């Protein structure tokens, strides 16, 4: 067993570290006040451009796509080094992590030539238009339709939970092109211009008060057939490519989220009516439980990295990551607020740890749903890892327009 980098990885890490030290200095600490929307977009683009110029974008992409043609380990090494800073990367995560790989895997040559390079250079922002009000976990139940009209398709419907739609230039969208086919068979994917007439993105206000997502309405939006991704009726297969990339992208604990160390720091400052919090057995046992979960996920990821480094593909075992991370964040934050009694409820306090824990409590409720709910992920573990039979799906083979949902 060896936790060290290979010589090659170590050299790459050293170069990346030097480059980051020279170029990411202003992001060493988090911003004292959150960026305004325009400031966030400006900084995100400029950071992406700086990385692009230095060869730190599309690290695993083929050189023919403007990438660096390196291994997943190189990409992970760079991400690890970058995560020591508070650089604004989230604007491009979905586009470059999920949308563009789908475009260059399934797109038509002209579309690939037109879209890949500007996205990588940070000139164009992309979003992923999958979920709908009536199709969340059951993604194949989407109703947004695309109807062929001459050389174009005309899209009508509504998407929801679309991250950054209001900031995006383009999106990849799943539509239903054949309502008489079974639900998974009548789907087709397209590239859609988010500035086209008939597209309207409305920010969705979350329970937490934030607005990271949008609902997006499509009314008679025209898309050229050259912007189709994959064959007509193959939309489900194409969407799975995107989701496979999501599985690699989503998972670990959000960077800079509170963990067991935050609970320890908070407990050290609290006196309970039975003595200092750090002297209470329940507090100490809870710290241990948080440590087991937080560090256990890191170690699980290191095992996956180790497999990657040997050229193996990490399996769906990685699905345990978000299930553990999201619920641990919620439980740990709730315990910390309990420990703080009424002080844990007031949001005007001055303890920065407590403020982060309150934020984590609100965010974790969403994290348990986003990118696959706890329940769907448990299904995936049970079915794909342990080989248990799938849930009964009475609508699976029915024509979509004859099923209960339609």
């Amino acid at each position, binding site marked *: *067993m*060896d*936790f*060290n*980098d*290979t010589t090659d*990885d170590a050299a790459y890490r050293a170069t990346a570290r030097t480059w980051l030290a020279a170029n990411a200095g202003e992001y060493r600490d988090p911003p004292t006040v959150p960026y305004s929307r325009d400031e966030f977009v400006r900084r995100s683009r400029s950071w992406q451009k700086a990385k692009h110029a230095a060869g730190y974008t599309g690290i695993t992409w083929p050189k023919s796509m403007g990438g660096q043609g390196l291994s997943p*380990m190189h990409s992970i090494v760079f991400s690890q080094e970058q995560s020591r800073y508070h650089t604004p990367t989230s604007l491009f995560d979905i586009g470059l992590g999920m949308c563009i790989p789908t475009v260059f895997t399934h797109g038509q040559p002209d579309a690939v030539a037109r879209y890949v390079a500007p996205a990588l250079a940070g000139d164009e922002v992309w979003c992923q238009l999958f979920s709908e009000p009536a199709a969340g976990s059951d993604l194949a139940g989407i109703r947004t339709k695309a109807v062929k009209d001459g050389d174009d398709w005309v899209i009508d419907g509504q998407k929801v939970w679309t991250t950054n739609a209001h900031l995006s230039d383009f999106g990849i969208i799943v539509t239903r092109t054949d309502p008489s086919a079974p639900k998974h068979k009548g789907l087709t994917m397209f590239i859609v211009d988010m500035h086209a007439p008939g597209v309207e993105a409305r920010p969705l206000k979350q329970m937490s008060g934030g607005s990271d997502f949008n609902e997006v309405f499509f009314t008679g939006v025209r898309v050229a057939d050259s912007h189709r991704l994959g064959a007509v009726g193959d939309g489900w297969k194409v969407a799975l490519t995107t989701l496979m990339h999501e599985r690699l992208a989503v998972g670990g604990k959000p960077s800079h989220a509170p963990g*067991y160390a935050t609970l*320890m720091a908070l407990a050290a400052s609290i006196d309970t009516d039975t003595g200092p919090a*750090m002297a209470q*057995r329940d507090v*100490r*046992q809870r*710290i*241990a*439980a948080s*440590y*087991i*979960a937080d*560090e*256990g*996920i*890191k*170690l*699980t990821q*290191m*095992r996956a*990295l*180790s497999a990657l*480094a*040997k050229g193996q593909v990490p399996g769906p*075992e990685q699905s*345990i990551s978000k*299930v*553990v991370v999201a619920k641990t964040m919620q439980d740990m934050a709730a315990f910390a607020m309990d420990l703080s009694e009424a002080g844990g409820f007031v949001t005007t306090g001055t303890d920065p740890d407590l403020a982060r824990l309150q934020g984590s409590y609100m965010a974790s409720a969403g994290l348990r749903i986003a990118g696959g709910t706890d*329940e769907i*992920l*448990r*299904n995936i*573990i*049970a*079915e794909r*890892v*342990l*080989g*248990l*039979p*799938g*849930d*009964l799906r009475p609508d699976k083979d029915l024509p979509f327009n004859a099923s209960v949902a339609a």
Partner: protein
Amino acid sequence: MDFDFSDDAKALRDQARKFLDERAGPKVARAVMDGGDRAPLWREVVDLGWPAARVPEGHGGVGMSSEAACVLAEETGRSLAPVPLMQSLLATEALLTLGSAAQQARWLPGIADGSIVAVTGWAEGGAASPAVANARVSGGTVRGSKSPVADAAAAHLAIISATGDDGIQLYLVDLTGPGVEVAPVATLDLVRAHSIVTLTDAPADPLGSPGSYHDWLDRAAVLSAFEALGTATAAMDMAVAYAKERVAFGQKIGRYQGVKHKCADMFIKLELARGHALHAAWAMESGAPELRQAAAAARVASLDALAFCAEENVQIHGGIGYTWDSDCQFYYRRNRALVAALGSRTFWAERLVRSLEQRNAVAA
């Protein structure tokens, strides 16, 4: 990065799994529970050279790394094999880590060739943790009693905790010598035999020092984590196999989320435990300063996984799982044996947090 066992350790694991799949498992556990003879399987295990795996070549062993002990512990746990291998591994680790050259020369060759069965024991029948021993050593002899001690009935050497002039530490006690009485003690585990070892001024040879006692506890925790991981995995496998075959309300019960999510939770707890156990195995082999923290985390995570898998395995089986004839009881009972073997989850969680505090204090 290579966060996995070496090829040597994996080859040993595969050999052990193949052999124990055939020669151990719940059927053999049941035969032993019903009075069957343990000795023949142990002779075969000795012939395979497993007690010798960790013993240096100079003492007649194979000289493998501590990873070998980890994989053997896991396979022992998985197969419920009714042999004193786990005890042999723990005792060997104590001699290797803390023993003087003379002590190693005296005991290791016999452990390697099977002529000496060695066991370890810290408990004294009561509510004390492994950090405490009421057995007292003075003038080179020990007085006290150790219970329950696994596999002590046929053993020649016991490595026990006792309190001497400088505090708690390990001692070697020759069980064939004077002042030793070994009697059976009944426990919840009906397969692994336990004894009460009563020591009345028995000669006690100090092994290591009070300072190094806790180093041995760390190493014992790592090995015990792998044993628990093995037992928990077998319980999960049994539950999953049943969920794939049992039909209720017209379909396999594994289709119901109430059942499949339990199975998924078993897998989740096992993956977390395996990550911690591998980390601790790395820290043990490389002598990393994180060992105390990693060993405690491995012990806690593996006990969490084992309790959950053993308990929910019965639940997934329903009524049939609660019968005497079902194999569920072996995992359910072994769970309690492995908790009792080295201190409860509470003790190790406390030890984990204390080591985190110490680390923070050093960093500050």
